[in-house]
């Protein structure tokens, strides 16, 4: 069944106040356009889960969407702090729940597999376990040393940006895959934004490239450039200049809210955002071609 819709409708229908959201992607393919649409639609009391909150959760928290954050690395990668989240945590205005990367991803992997928990070998998490009761120690039934357990994390909604998908939500991804698959299978509802909506045949020509099957997808939306200032491998570059700019901007409440007004609230959608960025930015972010080469699946009639 075709699941193609526009992003505003998908967010309006499937993202509710109080939901636990997981906007997936490790540095790569971060769904900024969906985050901005959630801000525009004024969602409140969200629990925002992400291994690496990145700038998108800083922005959503600044806009007042968040009640709680679940994370394992709350930094601006390669730059420093996420100042909005840091201020809110330091002031006690935001609840938080914290893991290491492996712990966070293990929670998603357990949920994706339909398991109540998954074990890890001990990682020296004693300090974190003292402040986070989700960490449990359980015996190895085969007589080895104890292992650590972490419980499944089931987001109400996972949002993924993908390079290309068909109208059924079958999606090809390449480049850094982060926790995309685990987050999608863990969630109750899955929203995709895609650089390109392609004919089903493009997907079917390379079925091993399909990381997300349409059968778990609730809605798929055609939103080119949805990841900026994050990136889409082969489509556009990470805008490192913006990540550096955010460091200063986000420390100044006046500039921060002016930025949200200008780049989120005042714009109807991602097309307007991308147009506003301007052709110099488009050119600066355009990579050179590096084709993958092909493989042959063979016809067996």
């Amino acid at each position, binding site marked *: 069944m075709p699941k193609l819709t526009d992003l505003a409708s998908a967010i309006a229908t499937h993202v509710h106040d109080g939901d636990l959201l997981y906007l997936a992607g490790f540095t*790569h393919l971060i769904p900024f356009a969906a985050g901005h649409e959630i801000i525009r639609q004024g969602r409140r009391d969200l629990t925002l889960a992400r291994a690496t909150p990145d700038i998108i959760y800083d922005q959503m928290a600044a806009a007042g969407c968040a009640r709680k954050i679940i994370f394992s690395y709350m930094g601006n990668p390669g730059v420093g702090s996420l100042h909005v989240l840091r201020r809110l945590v330091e002031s*006690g205005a935001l609840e938080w729940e914290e893991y290491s990367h492996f712990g966070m991803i293990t929670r998603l992997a357990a949920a994706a597999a339909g398991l109540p928990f998954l074990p890890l070998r001990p990682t020296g998490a004693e300090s974190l376990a003292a402040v986070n009761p989700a960490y449990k120690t359980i015996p190895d039934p085969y007589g080895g040393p104890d292992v650590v357990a972490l419980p499944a994390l089931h987001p109400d909604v996972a949002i993924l940006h993908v390079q290309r998908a068909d109208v059924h939500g079958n999606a090809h991804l390449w480049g850094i895959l982060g926790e995309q698959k685990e987050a999608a299978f863990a969630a109750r509802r899955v929203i995709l934004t895609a650089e390109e909506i392609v004919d089903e045949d493009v997907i079917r020509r390379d079925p091993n490239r399909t990381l997300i099957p349409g059968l778990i997808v609730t809605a798929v939306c055609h939103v080119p450039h949805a990841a900026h200032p994050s990136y889409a491998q082969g489509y556009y570059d990470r805008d490192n200049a913006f990540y550096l700019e955010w460091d200063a901007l986000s420390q100044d409440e006046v500039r921060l809210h002016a930025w949200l007004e200008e780049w989120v609230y005042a714009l109807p959608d991602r097309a307007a955002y991308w147009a506003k960025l301007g052709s110099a930015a488009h050119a600066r972010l355009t990579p050179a071609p590096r084709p993958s080469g092909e493989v042959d699946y063979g016809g067996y009639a």
Partner: protein
Amino acid sequence: MTPAPAYSPAELMAVNAARLLQDGEVVFVGVGLPNLACNLALRTHAPNLTLIYEAGVIGARPERLPLSIGDPTLVTGATAVTSMYDIFALYLQRGLVDVGFLGGAQIGRYGDINATVIGDYAHPKTRLPGSGGSMEIAAFAKRCFIITPHQPRRFPERVDFQTSLGHGPARRALPGSGPQAVVTDLGLLRPDASGELVLAALHPGITVEQARAATGWPLQIAPDLTTTAAPTAEELALLRALDPDRIYLK
């Protein structure tokens, strides 16, 4: 005799970190100085290093210096890209990683690292980004190296929060041997038999007193204290070619 070339503290640390790597090892790499150190080692004495980036990239051949660990330049031309779960489970936890690099705001007397919080956890004075993957790198990599400037506030006797374990009693439950060297701009600290970090080497021109003054506990001196060799002209040239805009070498 040609005069020793001039170098910055960051260059000094990167060169000394590179020298700690052995050819053929599998190294879990972070951005910044660890990335530069690994790429320098690749180009000098360790051409068969395998570099793994936390983002899931193996055998990267970046055409530019990456700002973040997830930069697209790490992917294009790499040997393999896999998921984050696989990187932590199938590589780190499985025991395939020889060396990991760690950093943090505080390094304690027994090698504990704090990257989480200054002050009380529930009421933070300064909230830091947190573990990321550093807890499991410290747990699972066969050995770890730390690169950090040598300052008293970075070397307190006890850290405010144990993000990554050093050489306390809990280390016995972990397969990795923990921090085996801390490379600073003054010299190298290494754990002694009790796990306490002691001064194992001084960089050329640095004194024991300088190292002691920059450390937050009574720094012990290894019986075989050595002096590191100054960075060679070749090392410096290769290193600077890796970071021509001096983003990390400043």
